């Protein structure tokens, strides 16, 4: 079934593939991987630090998986993981896999989940720039 969690540091490679996600009735897997960029608003980004209200974030990820199943396909399986702490450009910070009977539900649920994470997940991104300054982002 659903597997969700907050992970210390960049996401390990084992979470980037949807291993063991499918059930025999599933015919599609949609995945989204968010990756740290090396630029933002024309500024060079050296690294990020993600802060998190962990108990709430873990509860919310589990709730979002149930919400996606209710909304798109009661039989879908979702895995959602977000990394926290320091991350460098190119490293994966969030990964979502959705397995469903058909592609439309898989794509729609995957898109829905990343948008809901952007709206509500209590995680905050502090960007560090190549001029030595840093900034907490307000929404993304």
């Amino acid at each position, binding site marked *: 079934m659903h597997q969700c969690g907050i992970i210390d540091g960049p996401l390990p490679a084992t979470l980037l593939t949807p291993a063991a996600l499918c059930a025999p009735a599933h015919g599609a897997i949609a995945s989204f991987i968010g990756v740290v960029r090396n630029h933002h608003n024309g500024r060079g980004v050296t690294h990020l630090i993600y802060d998190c*209200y962990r108990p*709430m974030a873990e*509860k919310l990820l589990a709730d979002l998986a149930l919400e996606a199943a209710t909304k798109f396909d009661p039989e879908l399986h979702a895995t959602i993981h977000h990394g926290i702490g320091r991350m460098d450009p190119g490293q994966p910070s969030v990964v979502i896999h959705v397995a469903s009977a058909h592609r439309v539900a898989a794509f729609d649920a995957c898109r829905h989940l990343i948008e809901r*994470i*952007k709206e509500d997940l209590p*995680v905050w991104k502090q960007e560090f720039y190549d001029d030595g300054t840093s900034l*907490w982002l307000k929404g993304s």
Partner: protein
Amino acid sequence: MPEVTVLYFAQARDRLGCDRDRVTLPTSADANAVLSAVRLRHPNNAALIDRCRVAVDCQFIDGPVAISDHSEIALIPPVSGG
């Protein structure tokens, strides 16, 4: 009236200079009541505080909810995960 801990994160923690405060709230409080209590502690950061949402026991709240000494309250600045 219950005395509770309010947790601060990210830019709120940096600007308020601490990661939590103890505040007294009524037994039924909405988000505005929580934000008002935090504003009293940090009057120079009212604009930042007013941009935050409030969570009680890991759930966003807007309208009134029951508050006890064991409630965990958090100020949630605009999120930027993903």
